[in-house]
């Protein structure tokens, strides 16, 4: 069994009398240590998949398994623990706590786990050794996103989930962030799942999962991913 498996996953939202299928028999696998990119147009259901994988949402039907554990059957409490110990999440708008410094934003996550990378170490690693005592408002978007990545990594998660991490960033900064993610995957053997609507960045992935109409329409395995530096869009 693959490290991450989705099999016939359904997720339906009821808005009034209309039912929207956000996941309509979604099926794909991702292996450990891979950098997977889930790509699709707006509203295709890619964020729903990520949310379900991250334990922020539950599926109505189907199997979701991560590292051999059946996440689909988790109750509220188990989901919390799952998010706490197994998942690192990176958002488009960083979602840093504005009232905490960079270091504190990392610490608040790190301290939920016994086994964690100290905040200062991880911040230095993402290149923010000098700015760790700044508040988010004092940091640029890229820096904020790096804090966000540091926060996710400090927990040593099994799975790093990124939701449009470059969506709010300029081109260069976005590239830097993608580089950081790719490096993390390569050097630390971290399994990274990245959701984006930007198909241009798919070459950097080990595995590309294309989503259309709430289904995984195509899964492409890339044996030789392109380093981010070489990708242009």
């Amino acid at each position, binding site marked *: 069994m693959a490290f991450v498996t989705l099999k016939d996953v359904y997720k339906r939202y009821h808005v009034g009398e209309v039912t929207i299928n956000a996941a309509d028999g979604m099926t794909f696998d991702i292996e450990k240590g891979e950098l997977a990119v889930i790509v699709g147009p707006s509203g295709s259901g890619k964020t729903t998949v990520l*949310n379900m994988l*991250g334990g*922020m*949402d539950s599926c109505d039907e189907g199997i979701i398994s991560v590292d051999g554990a059946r996440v689909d059957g988790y109750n509220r409490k188990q989901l*919390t*623990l*799952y*998010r*706490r*110990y197994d*998942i690192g*999440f990176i*958002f*488009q*708008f960083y*979602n*840093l*706590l*504005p*009232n*905490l*410094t960079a270091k*504190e934003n990392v*610490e*608040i*996550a790190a*301290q*939920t786990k016994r086994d964690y990378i100290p905040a200062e170490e991880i911040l230095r690693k993402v290149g923010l050794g000098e700015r760790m005592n700044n*508040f*988010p*408002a*004092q940091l640029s978007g890229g820096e904020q996103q790096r804090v966000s990545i540091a*926060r996710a990594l400090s927990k040593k998660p099994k799975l790093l989930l990124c939701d*449009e991490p470059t*969506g709010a960033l300029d081109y260069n900064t976005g590239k830097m962030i993608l580089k950081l993610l790719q490096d993390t995957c390569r050097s630390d053997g971290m399994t990274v799942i990245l959701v984006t609507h930007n198909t241009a960045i798919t070459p950097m992935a080990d595995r590309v999962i294309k989503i259309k109409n709430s289904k995984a329409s195509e899964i492409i395995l890339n044996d030789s991913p392109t380093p981010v530096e070489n990708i242009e869009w």
Partner: protein
Amino acid sequence: MKAVNKNTFREISKSKSRFLSILLICAIGVGFFSGVRATCDIMKTSADDYFDEHNLFDLRVLSTFGLTENDVRAISEVEGVDGVYPSKYTDLALHRGDEEYLTRIFSSTPDEINKIDIYEGRAPESDGECIVSYNKLHEGIKVGDRITLEDLTEADEFPLKGTEYTVVGLYSTPMYISKTQRGSTNIGDGAIDAFMIVPEEQFTGEIYTEIYVRSDKLKNAFSYSEEYKELRDDISDKLETLGIDRSEIRYDEVIGDALREIEDGESELEKAKVDGQKELDDAKKELDDAAKQIADGEKELSDAKKQLDDGAVQLADGEKELADAKKEIDDGKAALAETEKTLVDAKKQLDDSKAQLDAGRAELDSQKAALEEGKAQLNTARSQYEQGLAQYEENVKQVEQMEQAYGSAAVAEMKAQLEQVKAQLDAALAQITQNEQTIAAGEAQLSAAQAEIDAAMSQYNAGLAEYEDGYSQYLDGLKKIEDGEREYNEGVQTLAQKRQEYNDGVKSYEDGLAELSDAKKKYEDGLVEYNDGVAEYNSEIADAEKELSDAREEISDAGKAEWYIFTRDDNVGYSEYESNSERINRIAAIFPVFFLLVAGLVCLTTMSRMVEEQRTQIGTLKALGYSNGAIMRHYMVYAVSGAAIGGVIGAIGGCFLFPSVIVYAYSMMYEITKIHYLFTPENMIVSIGSMTLAIALTVFFSCRKALEETPASLMRPKAPKAGKRVLIERIPFLWNHMSFFAKVSGRNIFRYKRRMFMTVVGIAGCTALSLTGLGLKNSISDIVDLQYDEIYKYSGYLAYDEDIKPSELESIYDTLLEYEPDTKYTRALIKQYETEFSGNKVTCYITCVEDTELFESFVDMHERTSGKKLSLSDGAIITEKAAKLLGLSEGDSLNIKINDGKSGTLTVSGITEQYTSHYLYMSESVYKQLFGENPKFNMVYFDNGISRDETVQDAFSEHVIANDNVLALIMNASSLSSVHETLQIMDLVTVVLIVSAAALAFVVLYNLTNVNITERIREIATLKVLGFYDMEVSSYIFRENIILSIMGGAVGLALGYALCMFVITTAEIDEVMFGRSIHAPSYLWAFLITLAFSLIVNFIMTGVLKKISMVESLKSVE
């Protein structure tokens, strides 16, 4: 409907909870504001209704000389007067069993004036029936009870026809709306305990005590209004003017008559004096004569008595003499008889002796002859013998011669023969001698016999002579006896005569004696009569003199006849009720403002948040070309409609709720129970209007900033507030020791300063209200604890009649000592007087103490704040609340209204801590100076250290009351429980305050937490995504709440202290001073109550937090 307006209404239905929270806080704010504001007017209006319904008098006329029908007629002619009702009253002591109540007894008046409410039973109909005022504090009297009345004054005439009445009903009167205070009187301890009504015919006097005046104009005016006061004063002035004339007429009537009567009386008295004295003198003379006569008679009688006694002795002697004589005679007779017998015997003996003598003589003669013969014979023999002897002697001589001669032999023969002869001779001699002897004997015998016979003869002769003597004596005796007998008989006869005479004497003596004692008795009776007469004369004269001088004094004392016009204000309770209602108004000035402020702040937060949330919408509308005004109108309509609806609900609810609670609370003290609800436009407009205006202002301020921005910037999400270092971070020592979450919370609190401020204000308000509620309770329990534990150290006091005899007073002491030998006690005089200082008037109990030193151990007198001990030896001491009401301070001169318009002044030397009633303590010397007379003690304060346990108290009371000299017993333990009852009102206030506190805390915290959550929903979602447990997420938010609650609580405790003191000073009733300190546990409780409310809100909000969806909240802004 315009789309913009549609949007507004949809907005409301979409965000119900927000709309509701605005509505609710406004409802509470307006409810408080309007309700408390209306209460004063509602209380007054309810009272006015009550007074109108019961036709309470508007004016009351009293005169020093009483009032007559003429006065009634004169008053009814005064302009503006529509009803005149004369009435009588008198103050008496009412007894029911052992209890005594000072009671004012009124004559019944028609329902058109001072209409009474009969709670139970019926009106009095026949003689001996009465109704008694219904009074919570004296619930003792029941329908069907028999009561007796006693006049405590020295009046000659009992003011009522009967002294015993049966209670047939219980009533309340509009004249005295206070249930606790009954006004004062000149009798007993001065405080009226109860009222009573009997039919007017029950009064013996003709003169009316007072006249009630009623005016239709005044009835239509509002009782406590200025208009009423002006109209009333108009009529009052007219009555005063009338009073001057009427008084003069009345004076002439009463005093003129009285003076004439006195003068008549005086001349009559003079005449009576002279007549009486003369009569007495005559009687005295008569009595003296009688006394002399009696003395003479007595002397005479005693002489007679002496004579009689002598006579009796003589009689007894005579009798004895006679008896002796008789005995002598008898003895003589017996002796004579014996003598006779002896004489006869002697005669016979004599005769016998004679015969014997004769015989003896004859024999003697014969014997003599014989003897002569023998003698002759003998003589012969003798001569023979001598011859023979002479022969013989010759023979012998011969024989001797012969013998000499011849030899013996030859003579032998002759000798023998001689011998023989000799023998013969001897024999013959012997014979002769013998014969001679015999003859001598015979001769002696004969001479003896001769002598004997001679003796016998002489004896005989003597006997004979004796006999003859005896015989003659006998004859003499016989004669004597006969004389004696005759004499004796004569004596007997004389004695009998004498006895008769004596007996007659005794009888006449006894008669005399009886006569004398009769005379004496008559004299004594006469004397007693005389003395009585003198005493009667003296006392009658003295009485008459006293009566006359009293009458004269009375006339001079009576001074001028004067009318007194009283208004309702002079009645106990009437104006007190007014000041109580105004007190509520003063509270109304602070509480509602507070609630208004909080409501405004809450709305400000809510609306700011709303505007912030709807930046995009505002931007869009702006982009579409809507004016700022049009956009603001959306929010205005939203908030103002909420405020208006809430305001209307609050105003209506508040105007029902608060007056109800407060009037209910006061109904424990006043008769007024029916509430006249008022929804005055003014109150509605002011309360709802001010709230709406405040909300409109908050909306304006919330929108203004957003509306100034460009549509483009509005449509961009507003960057969350940047984090900032807080002050505490600059103190590394503290900061480094804080937990990570504590740091976060600390920073968060200061990030949202406005919210922090508002939360603190709201929570502080909650704590302050709770503390006020609890503090009020403390201050009341303080009354009990401080008054009855710290100040009153004695056990109780008892009342007795001031004219008690020393022995009866002693018996009271004995009763106390019997129960507990260690009882300490001292006498005191307690009486109510009106005191005045700088225009303020307070009715005080003037308490004059006999043993000041002991009393100071009974009542701990000290200044409250400094704790300085006060001593009665330094001067008079007044209680704190009285001093405060009077505005009096130490060393000031206090005016005391002594009866009859006189007043005295004394310097107050100290102000002592005291919580119930007003006292003015003083020593005997101070009293003497003030009143110019010695105090007549009427109370005994005592301390016997008995427990407050009810059974112990009951047993003690029973023991003491058994002593008839004890009129009443007031134990501190029982006063204490009645204080508890009176002050239960405050319990209700406490509950109201705590409920308000809860409402406030809830609304504020709920609202602010809600805002907090929506504002920070992304943070919360992020934390959730990071895998924080629900608990951790909640505590992340609520830690701030709790910290703010603690801060608010701390502020609230300070605020609460101030508020509580304000409420205590404005709310406390005049006779009572509440405690001035809040106890430590109350601070703790107020704090805990606040925290509890805060935790409840947190608990409710935990659910909201749980429901927050990560996916929704973190959705990127499109």
